[in-house]
């Protein structure tokens, strides 16, 4: 998807960029980026939602910042500069949450700090935000953030249901059906199974053509 998007003369539209983030280049299921935190937090749906929303915020804010300042960033040190931009936003959100939303912070504080090292965020800055004007960059950041949030919810539902027999903490079945899926190894199995499923969806969206994960050029992290 992104090949065609980036080579086009005019920047793509909002709808296309949003769909690209959620399906075509879904960070977890298609690009296979940031799998480690995706496995770590998705033992329950609620945890997945919290991390997903935090990533969504940081992705949009960092992408927009880079799009606005890209002319001023020296190309040789762009990666360290992106890292600092992400770190500033993450720390700012962390401090504001700790100061003004203590009960929310008690639940999400642990995850917010992790986001500095998220491969998906820095990869979108390098691949998209550093080459595109503000408006498309905003939609790309929003799409990627929503795609990550969507992926974490799907994995969370899958694992919480099978591992703990519950959805959002409400027991659906009395016992834990397959505790294995709540454990880290089970997380990778869940993602693998769901990734296969999303490959099928992507093939159907492309009219029967198989396509490799869209993120081949990003490096995996």
């Amino acid at each position, binding site marked *: 998807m992104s090949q065609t998007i980036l080579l086009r003369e005019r920047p793509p539209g909002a709808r296309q960029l949003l769909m690209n983030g959620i399906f075509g280049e879904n960070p977890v299921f298609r690009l296979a980026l940031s799998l480690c935190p995706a496995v770590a937090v998705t033992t329950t749906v609620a945890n997945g939602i919290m991390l997903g929303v935090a990533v969504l915020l940081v992705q949009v804010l960092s992408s927009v910042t880079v799009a606005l300042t890209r002319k001023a960033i020296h190309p040789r040190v762009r990666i360290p500069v992106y890292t600092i931009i992400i770190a500033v936003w993450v*720390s700012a959100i962390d401090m504001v949450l700790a100061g*003004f939303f203590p009960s929310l912070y008690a639940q999400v504080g642990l995850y917010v700090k992790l986001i500095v090292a998220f491969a998906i965020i820095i990869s979108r800055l390098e691949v998209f935000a550093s080459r595109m004007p503000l408006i498309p960059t905003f939609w790309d950041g929003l799409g990627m953030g929503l795609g990550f949030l969507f992926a974490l919810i799907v994995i969370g539902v899958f694992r919480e249901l099978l*591992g703990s027999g519950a959805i959002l903490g409400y027991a659906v079945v009395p016992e834990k059906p397959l505790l294995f899926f709540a454990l880290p190894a089970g997380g990778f199995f869940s993602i693998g199974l769901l990734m296969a499923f999303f490959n099928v969806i992507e093939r159907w969206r492309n009219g029967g053509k198989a396509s490799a994960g869209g993120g081949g050029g990003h490096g995996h992290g």
Partner: protein
Amino acid sequence: MSDVKPTVVPAAPSGELWRIVASMTATCAIGAAILGAIYIGTERYAEESRVRGERRAVSELLGLDEGARVLEVRQFLTPARDAVVYQRPAEVGAPGRELVFALDGTMLRDGALAGTPEEADAIREFHSLGRLFIAMREGVPAGFVAEGESRGYKNRIRFFVAMSADWKIAGVRVVEHEEDPGLGAEIATSWFQGQYVGRKLAAVPRLDVTRDPMPEDWRGALRARPGTAAGDWASRFGTLASREAEKPIYAVTGATISSRALTDGVRATILHFRRRWELIGPRLLEPGTREATK
């Protein structure tokens, strides 16, 4: 993706180096300035909400009103690890108090604390042993909360243990942990922590963990327990609670290590506190303190 070219940068002319340095330095300086400003703006609120959260946890554990008087005592180990220091910080209108004991229990010092910055500096190198909160009602202790730490599955678990004035466990509250969500993190739920409530001091040395499944009636009773005041819970489930009071703690399924870590920590914290209280209690509550409560 191979047809998207990475940003190609030609080899740097030697004169370009300073611009790279300047660019990085400027970025870091701007970032630091933004974060510094946000820190100054939010630090006070973060500290306030942390203190408020702890106060609320203490009064909930002991079933106190929000306004109840709570003495806070800080405990430290000296850097040489040869003496334990207890400090009751100075408050408005009442000087603080400092008690120092050697490890064998002999008292080395009993003095006042004025609350000066020098005193705060002097204690900075000391190793914190957690805090004690003593709830006062009409000049006598109405309950105690001791802060404890234990090594969990991944990182330390910090918790509060509350004891009623008649030395029964009034509650356990995990305030900081990094156990796995869905597994070890279950030790921070009220139904797991409810298992400790009501156990007598005499039974605490035998407090242990079992991997046996929790009986269904007891599980239902623990889940029905309200978060703070017990209400009619005791009348509905009192017999069940007394049946379980002498039994081990039922471990969270798949998280025996975390369950054991908290239970071992709770046991050690209570037994330590009981021993310390005999040393420090009478002195901390001497007339000077009682006048200050009026």
